[in-house]
């Protein structure tokens, strides 16, 4: 194993090296987009520099200033690419080549931060389809390859390549600006960015457990993005709220999988396996988020508050259901959806009993294809010992797609209903 200037070894830290190159690559990319005015060109150039670094650094050691190394390599590559373009008739890139040459100084940290923020808002421009926003964020801000982005978002690589090409083309021909929005526009545009990050997180969190490492890696990428966003916009309550929510949700990661590799429901999780460090950080951030916007409840901070109630409870039974129901009431004022109402009904049944829960369920319309609704109804009927009604609802839930842990649970309950109905 080769010692590096930092004194670590590459065999042990291949993953750390990839992470470093990707992180720095995103920053180099952000600046190069500004100086070249082309996302496509900048991506090609940075990709080339990143591959070069991954090839050379394990042998030569990490340079003292990895970002400077990558910046120079990417810039030279960009100049090469522009020269090649310039040789074609009708193309004149002399101005860009000159700008790249004359901008020899390495950008300072403030400039890099500004460039990154611009890139965030470009990738998450509402004019791009949401699935494209997430793909672009993974490609440009997290430094994943096109193949990895495809695997992460369950899209064939060729389709993903096409989608990314289309997005770059739209950014270029529609002139989607490379700019952080003005203060008046910021809240609205920021909501879009947060939604993109949250979507990424959920993609990873709800992925079929453990089967594909890249999928579960999405939660880590979403966490990294929200940390980055908080670094870039330190005062924004909704950004703090989102990071708090992601930390509190991901704190359950180790307990969400049983030894058989199946998903373990929240009520049945071994809470000793929850990540206390993530919970502590999430709680601290939640406090800050709630204090920052005390009169205007934030979508993410409110959901984080609900997650916090679970994080603080030693057992499912010991949960402060009064607080959970109150937070769901707040959440309904911001985001009144059937799924929120369903979760609220569960909390109500824990607080006031199955009859109150059923009454709350009755307020929800139909949720086609969502097995949790009949499953919750069935569970409440089961607790009321209404065996036949419960069995009907369990069968309805089993007729819909659900993961194996849920199915097994439903089958067990259904068998007990049928047994109890006979005796």
């Amino acid at each position: 194993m080769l010692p590096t200037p930092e004194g670590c070894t590459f065999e042990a830290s291949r993953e750390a090296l990839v992470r470093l190159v990707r992180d720095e690559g995103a920053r180099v990319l952000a600046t190069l987009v500004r100086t070249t005015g082309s996302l496509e060109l900048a991506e090609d150039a940075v990709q080339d520099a990143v591959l070069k670094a991954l090839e050379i650094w394990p042998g030569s050691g990490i340079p003292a200033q990895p970002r400077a190394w990558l910046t120079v390599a990417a810039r030279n590559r960009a100049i090469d690419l522009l020269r090649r373009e310039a040789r074609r008739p009708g193309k004149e890139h002399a101005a860009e080549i000159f700008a790249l040459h004359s901008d020899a100084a390495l950008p300072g940290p403030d400039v890099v931060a500004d460039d990154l923020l611009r890139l965030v808002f470009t990738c998450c421009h509402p004019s791009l389809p949401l699935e494209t926003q997430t793909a672009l964020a993974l490609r440009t801000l997290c430094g994943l390859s096109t193949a990895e982005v495809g695997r992460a978002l369950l899209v064939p690589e060729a389709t993903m390549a096409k989608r990314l090409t289309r997005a770059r083309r739209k950014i270029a021909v529609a002139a989607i600006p490379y700019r952080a929005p003005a203060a008046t526009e910021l809240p609205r545009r920021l909501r879009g960015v947060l939604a993109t990050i949250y979507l990424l997180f959920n993609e990873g969190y709800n992925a079929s457990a453990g089967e594909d490492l890249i999928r579960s890696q999405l939660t880590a990428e979403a966490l990294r993005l929200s940390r980055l966003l908080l670094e870039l916009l330190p005062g924004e309550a909704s950004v703090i709220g989102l990071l708090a929510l992601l930390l509190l949700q991901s704190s359950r990661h180790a307990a969400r999988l049983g030894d058989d590799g199946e998903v373990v429901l929240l009520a049945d999780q071994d809470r000793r396996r929850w990540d206390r460090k993530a919970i502590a950080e999430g709680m601290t951030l939640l406090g800050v988020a709630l204090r920052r916007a005390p009169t205007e409840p934030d979508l993410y901070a409110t959901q984080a508050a609900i997650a916090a109630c679970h994080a603080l409870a030693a057992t499912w039974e010991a949960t402060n259901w009064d607080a959970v129901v109150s937070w769901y009431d707040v959440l309904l004022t911001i985001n009144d959806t059937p799924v929120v109402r369903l979760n609220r009904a569960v909390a109500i049944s824990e607080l006031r009993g199955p009859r109150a829960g059923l009454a709350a369920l009755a307020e929800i319309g139909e949720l086609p294809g969502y097995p949790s609704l009949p499953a919750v109804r069935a569970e409440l009927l089961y607790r009321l010992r209404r065996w036949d009604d419960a069995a009907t609802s369990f069968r309805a839930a089993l007729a819909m797609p659900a993961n194996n842990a849920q199915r097994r649970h439903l089958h067990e309950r259904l068998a007990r209903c049928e047994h109890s109905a006979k005796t």
Partner: protein
Amino acid sequence: MPRYAALIYEQGDPDWSVLDTPEKESTMADYGAFGAAAAAVMRGGAALYPTTTGTVVQVPGGKGGEVVVTDGPFAETKEVLTGFYQLECADLDEAVAWAARIPAAWTGKVEIRPIIDFGAPDS
């Protein structure tokens, strides 16, 4: 004398900025011939990039309300194009700001599509 906008609808969302097939080149030549023939009545027109480069602006709250920007338009929408402005803007955000002031955005939708620049002749 009234003026008319001829809105050209085609199947398959073709990209006229790339003449990559003989069929497209031949169709392009037909357009050229039409343009020459109709020179006396021609007041202006433009070819648009494909719908995948489009942006939809809505002000659901009516005049002065919050501006909602989405991608699109989507193939399944049945709304038809009823007018056409050419706006020269620094970037998409500026175009969106102008589009939000077009009355159609308050009750319906304004779609912004980039116009293809085929380059100045003889350059």
